[in-house]
């Protein structure tokens, strides 16, 4: 090995200045720490952390919005907040939790785990991955900028935060009913988030299909990675429907078309179809990755391999397929006709089957295992139970006549919070707890983790279980307040108190994480004695993930390695030697352009939303419309994308010495 190092032209010593083989406008950033390193990073782990950090922030914001909503509903005839603010809160609570909390938290785990679980050093297109992140941030800003109008009178122009409901039914989004800028920003904000998700998903599709380590066949992929693949396909195929629907709303509002304007021959029901063609797959986009986390956590703490791996994978794919054929069950009360209603009811019942199969497989995994009730396991077990409750009320909805009674009532609220909190969020909390030691190198204390689990579990059920009864007693969703003689008083009070308890639980959970970040017990590489490849590398993982690309011999790759140490050590030494003879570990260079193009997109989209209004600065009109500013943003974006293409992927090499010391080299050979 030393010989190979010495012979290698790329290692050690001073290099001849590299020939300028790329079109560089300015030097590429190389900072490994500090602000610049985060803004220009292409490292999937850093990008995952940023996704996670932003998503947790918005998760807390969305939670605060929910607490305000619950406080307003605590007692009848309450005047705690205005009806207008209430509309903004429930709209942004839904939008935030779906697009700015659960989806990016899943994206965070895709980033953190997928490349490591497939045995790669990064995603297929690292700069594109950074672009997805920053575009997502732009979308989040566009959606939330309207809150500023509550801060100062000079910012009233936004007309508040979006207030059309998270599914923005036409014709409420018509200029006639919501003339404010808030709806335009909602339209463009969602559009930008969709762009981010599509780009990120394309990247993960290629990464999972094309960058698997030797020996890692598709049927050896960890279930989480499988679910990431299915979710990515759902995203690229479902998001276009809402993108086009949003384009049509935008055209209606700003360019005089009549897609959803009844007076011009448009049909508002088309919005519902296009929205739910996206919206129902979206439900599975939210829940499939959580099913993946749970499928990783249960076998680890049951000390058994996952029961029925192929059928779990198949069920996930089947859910993805059938998920495209059930959208109209959100629209049973619109009068689709008997045949359509029956068809969608049957498809909805059918999709419960693969979901049920998964649950039985998880139970099969637990059966006869040596169950260790560590905190991630508690959340995972909570997931199975709570998600099942949400699933049962979901099957009730598939019966169209029953659904007609439940439509738009608190029963529906109860149902989807059971699947989205009891399901998706419980699994995400399990996942955060489970992988925290891997990416921060510290353990979260068991005791406080369990305290937060029980607070969350009890608080959650106190909040949402009574809502089933409220809904069946006729309480409509999105109601600002109610009279005291409706029979809803006690349940609402109980639900609100439960929400406070849930809030305390969530606060405890994250407070403990922050404490652990600084004071937690230092974790080893493999604190849970787990099964997948991420546990085979140091905590936190080094920039290049693997010193030697692993060869995968079994489904639980790391478990196999632990039991065949001699064979694996020999194999790894050979891999390191082979790689060093090819110039070392190749790593992609950082880049400014993903960040700059996202800034261009923000300038462009923000000004495009208010295209027809004049630009006023300090009381003077500067431009008659926002077109010049929108174009400026567009030019910055396209220019940055072009320079990005010209600079090329670049790259440098990492060399691992026999003593484990890591050195870097830059040359003109990539």
């Amino acid at each position, binding site marked *: 090995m030393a010989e190979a190092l010495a012979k290698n032209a790329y290692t050690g010593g001073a290099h001849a200045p590299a020939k300028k083989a790329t079109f560089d406008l300015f030097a590429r950033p190389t900072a490994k720490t500090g602000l610049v390193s985060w803004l220009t990073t292409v490292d999937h782990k850093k990008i995952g952390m940023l996704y996670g950090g932003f998503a947790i922030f918005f998760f807390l914001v969305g939670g605060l919005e929910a607490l305000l909503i619950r406080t307003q509903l605590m007692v009848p005839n309450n005047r705690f907040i205005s009806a207008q603010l209430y509309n903004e809160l429930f709209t942004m609570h839904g939008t935030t939790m779906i697009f700015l909390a659960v989806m990016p938290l899943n994206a965070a785990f895709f980033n953190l785990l997928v490349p490591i679980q497939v045995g790669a050093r990064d995603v297929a297109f690292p700069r594109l991955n950074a672009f997805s992140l920053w575009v997502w941030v732009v979308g989040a800003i566009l959606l939330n900028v309207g809150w500023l109008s509550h801060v100062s009178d000079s910012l009233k122009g936004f007309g508040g935060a979006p207030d059309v409901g998270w599914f923005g039914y036409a014709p409420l989004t018509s200029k006639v009913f919501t003339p404010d800028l808030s709806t335009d920003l909602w339209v463009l904000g969602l559009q930008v988030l969709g762009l981010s998700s599509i780009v990120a998903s394309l990247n993960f599709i290629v990464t999972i299909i094309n960058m698997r380590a030797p020996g890692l066949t598709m049927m050896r992929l960890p279930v989480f990675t499988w679910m990431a693949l299915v979710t990515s396909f759902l995203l690229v*195929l479902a998001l276009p429907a809402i993108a086009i629907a949003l384009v049509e709303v935008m055209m209606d509002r700003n360019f005089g078309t009549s897609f959803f304007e009844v007076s011009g021959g448009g049909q508002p029901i088309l919005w519902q179809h296009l929205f739910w063609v996206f919206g129902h797959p979206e439900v599975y986009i939210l829940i499939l990755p959580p099913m993946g986390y749970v499928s990783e956590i249960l076998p680890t703490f049951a000390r058994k391999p996952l029961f029925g791996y192929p059928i779990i994978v198949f069920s996930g794919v089947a859910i993805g397929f059938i998920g495209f054929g059930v959208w109209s069950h959100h629209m049973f009360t619109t009068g689709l006709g008997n045949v359509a209603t029956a068809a969608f009811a049957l498809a909805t019942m059918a999709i419960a089957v693969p979901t049920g199969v998964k649950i039985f497989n998880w139970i099969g995994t637990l059966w006869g295992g040596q169950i260790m009730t560590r905190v991630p396991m508690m959340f995972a077990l909570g997931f199975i139970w709570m998600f099942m409750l949400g699933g049962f009320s979901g099957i009730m909805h598939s019966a169209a006549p029953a659904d007609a009674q439940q439509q738009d009532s608190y029963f529906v609220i109860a149902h989807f919070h059971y699947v989205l909190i009891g399901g998706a969020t419980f699994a995400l909390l399990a996942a955060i707890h489970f992988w925290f030691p891997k990416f921060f190198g510290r353990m979260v204390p068991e005791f406080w983790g369990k305290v937060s689990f029980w607070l969350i579990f009890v608080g959650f059920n106190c909040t949402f279980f009574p809502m089933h009864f409220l809904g069946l007693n006729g309480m409509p969703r999105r109601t600002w307040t109610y009279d005291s003689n409706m029979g809803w008083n006690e349940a609402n009070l109980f639900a609100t108190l439960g929400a406070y308890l849930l809030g305390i639980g969530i606060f405890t959970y994250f407070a403990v994480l922050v404490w652990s970040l600084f004071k937690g017990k230092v974790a080893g590489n493999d604190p849970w004695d787990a099964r997948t490849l991420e546990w085979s590398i140091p905590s936190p993982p080094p920039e290049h993930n693997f010193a030697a690309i692993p060869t995968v011999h079994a489904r639980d790759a790391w478990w196999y390695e632990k039991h065949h140490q001699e064979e694996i050590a020999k194999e790894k030494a050979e891999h390191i030697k082979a790689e060093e003879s090819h110039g070392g570990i190749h790593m992609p260079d950082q880049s400014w352009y993903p960040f700059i193009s996202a800034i261009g997109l923000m300038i462009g989209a923000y000004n495009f939303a208010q295209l027809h209004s004049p630009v006023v600065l300090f009381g003077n009109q500067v431009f008659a419309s926002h077109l010049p500013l929108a174009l400026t943003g567009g030019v910055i974006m396209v220019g940055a994308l072009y320079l990005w293409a010209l600079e090329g992927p670049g790259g440098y090499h990492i060399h691992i010495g026999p003593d484990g010391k890591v050195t870097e080299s830059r040359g003109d050979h990539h």
Partner: protein
Amino acid sequence: MSSHAATGHIDHHHDHTTSTGIPNKKLLWWAFLASDCMFFGALISTHMVYRLNPPPGNAVPTQVFNIELTSFSTFILLMSSLLMALAVNAIQRGNVKSTRTMLLGTMFFGCIFLGGQVYEFEHFVHAKNMTLSNSIFGSTFYTLTGTHGTHVAIGVLLLGMMYVRTFKPANGGGLFMNFAHLLAICVTFGVAFIWFVPGLIEVIYGLPIGDLFKRAAIPLAVGAAGLVSLFWLGRSRGAVEFGEKNAIDVEAIGLYWHFVDIVWIIIFTAVYLLEYL
């Protein structure tokens, strides 16, 4: 790609560094095209839904369309796919000069198509009085065909970027030249499809040719200047860092280009031909 340097021989159908043998870029484009199918699917569905439920006073498509012209531009767009395929073939054989010719040809045919669309839109609005807002048919027609036209225009821009890329000097530098070249491309082809081609179509329909030069004197002069600078910039300037190894990049744009053509076949059938049944 680095993988090819070791073997010396480039296999254009297999990349041994990936698990499937499909190059990453190609897989990315295929996945994107799947996504793009859904974009057009949603737009075409919208058009079809409103076609079946026309409100009173809706535009009558057969009175608006100029089917001969659209058939002609459809034919041109399909032929551009042939040139695109030849461009890919040329670069796979390492023939940079032929690649350039074929890229320019594809862009030129794309511009004839776009010019036809510019003429069509102008004609529909001014002569047939069908606008975005005065009928639902106008709303769906302009949004759908406009989205497709935008795809073609982006395709022309990508091809232009690739064409300019073929001039990257082997010994570094050349960034300014690259920008100037791309600017010349944008100006020339922009003038071609916004003013020149629509103007020629009007000449065919009876506009005196002198009027064309009077009406669009400034843009046409700028376009001519762009064309001259294209010739000047397009002369050979020594060794270039572009060759057989870049075949996958050209092929990726080719995938997109063919896809946009196929989508047009569907739009032409569903939006235009269907009305004559």
